[in-house]
């Protein structure tokens, strides 16, 4: 029998607010342990939460960007469980009445578009972190860092609409891109600001009934998400084909071994005893606020990609690369705006610019060459002031030193030599110095043309205008 996989994802994204969800503590990543805490996020006796309005606005942004319906009233609820990283003994989340519901996201895979349903988006607070190490007497010891406690999260729950790991990956990337475009989350999986759990089940192909699912956790990269899902699909298929039964459980992905291992069964699952949080009033999001957020939404990745293809006539691949970040797309558009050369601009950015940025692990925001700077280099090439090859050197020099193209070209004397008189002298010299090769060329070895071009370039340290050199050589060699 053939089986198909059914995959749904639960994504947690940290919101980039300055302060925590229910208190004024900083949310900055990487501070010394327990330095960004106050009585409220420490859960001291008697403290009360006060909702961060900015976090609500961010969550509404995401809801609208994924076509969700924003509920006028949503209700915070307590999710009760004991763990040392959870100071109150409960997490404030949303349960029966989430912030937003019933949205979707389109993913593009191998030229095909597929719509993935979004069940709900709700707000909640993050827990702290446990660090396992050694105590004062080298014994096993666990430390609690509560800096992360209370950092705002949104949980985005998808419908079980994905059928393969690459769909899950594409969905996840699309989701991440939107969050980053909206400037509400860093989307950084390694730092844990973007986390994903996957519900995976299999069923006979064509069946509409859902099979028993396993929930996969601990996948902290896009690659691991794919690996874990692939492993799990294979594991469940093998199990069913050998007469076994999938049991409902939570499984952890072990990235070192590339396998999922059982963490707890359904029977061991927590009973979270959700109930409405009595310390907070129901959250009312007025239509006005929704409209305000909607009108301020930026162009989203997919729309931008499509516009780049139609407006600039660049290939889909280029559009995909250029819109992978909002800043890169803006950079590109500025360059095109200056040069009016959409494809050449794309080539420059995808080639030279991204190569240099990648080498330095630098974001385009911090690129030392401004879009105008790149446009200037391109303009110099077009005007025949420098050759394309020299242009690349000049660009790299601009990137390293922050100097302008004009300065570099001037200082290094890189201006292209296009004067026929001057170049004719050089060509004559080369012909005179290489009588043997001239003979061979004339007797039919035309491949030697390149040798003469190379000699000319060498003699001018690359500054010769190649078109002029070609013309002169052809004349003088009698090609």
């Amino acid at each position, binding site marked *: 029998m053939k089986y198909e996989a059914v995959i749904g994802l639960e994504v947690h994204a940290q919101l980039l607010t300055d302060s925590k969800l229910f208190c004024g503590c900083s949310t900055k990543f990487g501070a010394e342990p327990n330095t960004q805490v106050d*009585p409220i996020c*420490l*859960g*001291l*006796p*008697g*403290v*009360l*939460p*006060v*909702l961060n309005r900015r976090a609500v606005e961010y969550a509404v942004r995401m809801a609208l960007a994924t076509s969700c319906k924003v509920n006028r009233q949503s209700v915070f609820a*307590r999710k*009760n469980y*004991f763990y*040392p990283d959870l*100071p*109150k*003994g*409960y997490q404030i989340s949303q349960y029966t009445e989430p912030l937003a519901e019933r949205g979707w996201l389109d993913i593009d895979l191998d030229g095909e578009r597929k719509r993935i349903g979004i069940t709900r988006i709700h707000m909640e607070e993050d827990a702290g972190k446990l660090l396992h190490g050694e105590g004062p007497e080298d014994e096993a010891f666990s430390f*609690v860092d509560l800096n992360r406690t209370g950092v705002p999260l949104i949980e985005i729950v998808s419908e079980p609409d994905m059928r393969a790991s690459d769909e899950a990956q594409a969905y996840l990337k699309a989701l991440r891109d939107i969050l980053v475009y909206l400037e509400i989350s860093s989307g950084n999986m390694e730092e844990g600001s973007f986390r994903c759990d996957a519900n995976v089940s299999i069923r006979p192909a064509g069946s509409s009934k859902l099979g028993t699912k396993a929930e996969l956790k601990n996948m902290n990269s896009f690659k691991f998400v794919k690996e874990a899902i692939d492993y799990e699909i294979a594991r469940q298929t093998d199990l069913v084909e050998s007469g076994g039964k999938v049991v409902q459980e939570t499984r952890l992905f072990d990235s070192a071994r590339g396998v999922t291992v059982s963490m707890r069964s359904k029977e061991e699952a927590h*009973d979270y*005893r*959700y*109930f409405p949080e*009595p*310390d*907070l*009033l129901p959250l009312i999001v007025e239509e006005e606020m929704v409209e305000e957020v909607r009108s301020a939404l930026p162009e989203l990745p997919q729309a931008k990609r499509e516009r780049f293809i139609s407006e600039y006539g660049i290939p889909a691949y280029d559009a995909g690369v250029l819109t992978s970040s909002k800043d890169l797309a803006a950079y590109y558009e500025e360059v095109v705006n200056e040069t009016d050369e959409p494809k050449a601009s794309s080539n420059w950015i995808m080639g030279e610019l991204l190569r240099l940025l990648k080498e330095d692990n630098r974001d385009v925001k911090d690129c030392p060459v401004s879009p105008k700077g790149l446009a200037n280099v391109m303009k110099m090439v077009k005007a025949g002031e420098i050759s394309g090859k020299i242009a690349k050197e000049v660009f790299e020099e601009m990137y390293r030193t922050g100097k302008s193209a004009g300065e570099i070209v001037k200082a290094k004397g890189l201006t292209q030599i296009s004067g026929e008189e001057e170049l004719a002298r050089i060509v004559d010299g080369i012909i005179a110095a290489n009588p043997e090769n001239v003979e061979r060329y004339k007797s039919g070895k035309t491949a030697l043309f390149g040798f003469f071009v190379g000699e000319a370039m060498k003699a001018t340290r690359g500054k010769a205008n190649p078109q002029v050199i070609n013309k002169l050589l052809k004349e003088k060699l009698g090609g």
Partner: protein
Amino acid sequence: MDITSLDISALSGKLVKKELSSAEATRAYLERIGRVEERVSAFVTVTPEEALKAASEADSRIARGEDVTPLTGVPIAVKDIFSTRGVRTTCSSRILENFVPPYDATVIRKLKEAGAVILGKNNMDEFAMGSSTENSAFKKTLNPWALDRVPGGSSGGSAAAVAASECAASVGTDTGGSIRQPASCCGVVGLKPTYGRVSRFGMIAFASSLDQAGPLTRSVADASLMLNAIAGHDQLDSTSIDAPVPDYTAGLGSGIKGLRVGIPKEYFIEGMDPEVESSVRKALETIKSLGAELVEISLPHTEYAVAVYYLVATAEASSNLARYDGVKYGLRVDETGSLLDMYKRTRDEGFGPEVKRRIMLGTYSLSAGYYDAYYKKASQVRTLVKEDFEKAFSACDVIATPTAPTPAFRIGEKLEDPLTMYLSDIFTISCNLAGIPGISLPCGFTKEGLPVGLQILGRYLDEETVLRTAWSYEDATEWHKRRPNL
């Protein structure tokens, strides 16, 4: 002159006129505490140093004539449920025995800003769970009127301290009657304001949707002065009400002619102590004689109130008390076993039997499969109780009832019988479920000399009418002037 016999306005008058300094008043109260505390046990912690420091600050404030309020320099106490910066706050629980908060509750901040002198922290039932203060992990507070009887609870330490003149007033909390019932038992005035009228920030939570702070005082006027100081919206408490705070003393003397006083037929039940019933009925006649109109009303869902309360309150408590896990502060037992062992031992040794009972009840009613039948159903019935009051208040302006079905009972009498103990709050609980204000004030004494309390309930945010009614009755009677003989 016995300084400790003065009510707040009399004492404040003397302080402002500099006939008396706050330091003298504070020392007088500390001496009084020294004399009677051994018998009454109303305090978990007395803070003489802090009190005398606050008194001298109050005296210089009065000397400068700046920011002087009716509480400036007045020695008061607070229930040990309010977080006090630098002063241990125990909730009368082992688990917080040595807990020193780094911040003040909003109520404490406001009292300090008003210039009040805080003498110490009053004993209570552990985490405010109880009706007798016998559930304190540290000591049993005794009723100043009869030392073999309980002071009521959970704010029993506050009520006893006020009755025994160990402080001019105290602030307690009321979740199901915890201010009014001990006030009734101890012959003092106890006011539970509208839910959200006073900030809960820094007040250790028992049942978040029911808890409300309020004053315990010797007179209705004093209760008004105290409410003036502690009421108001607080940005740190999302459930606090953003409504202007009137001067609660302003209309006290304007009479109750034509006021419609509702008498709920469900509140005069069989099995009520006959002496309580006759005192309350006489009080109603007095109120009538002052020009008010008595109207019979019905609160048909009263019989469900206790059940609803014990589902909602315990559910919230089971979650509120989860933070006492030995990880961050408070008691921690057993560092060597597993995490689960540490949790279990800490909570087993840290909590008393009544707290454990309620955590278990609440955990059960929130559990998967039971939530709909218990917590959810209780929340629905709570709405019906609230609607009962809304309907009743279309036919009357305030509601008058007994505060408690019996006078103060004997120590140990109900300790082994939680269900009977729970019925002590039968008349006070509905008010918390509905979120409306209520007051208890003395309306008589039994033959044995035990105080009886009259409860007056009012409309949402209508503390003024409640206080005016109570003041008029108090003004016409002498009960509040009696003091126990210690």
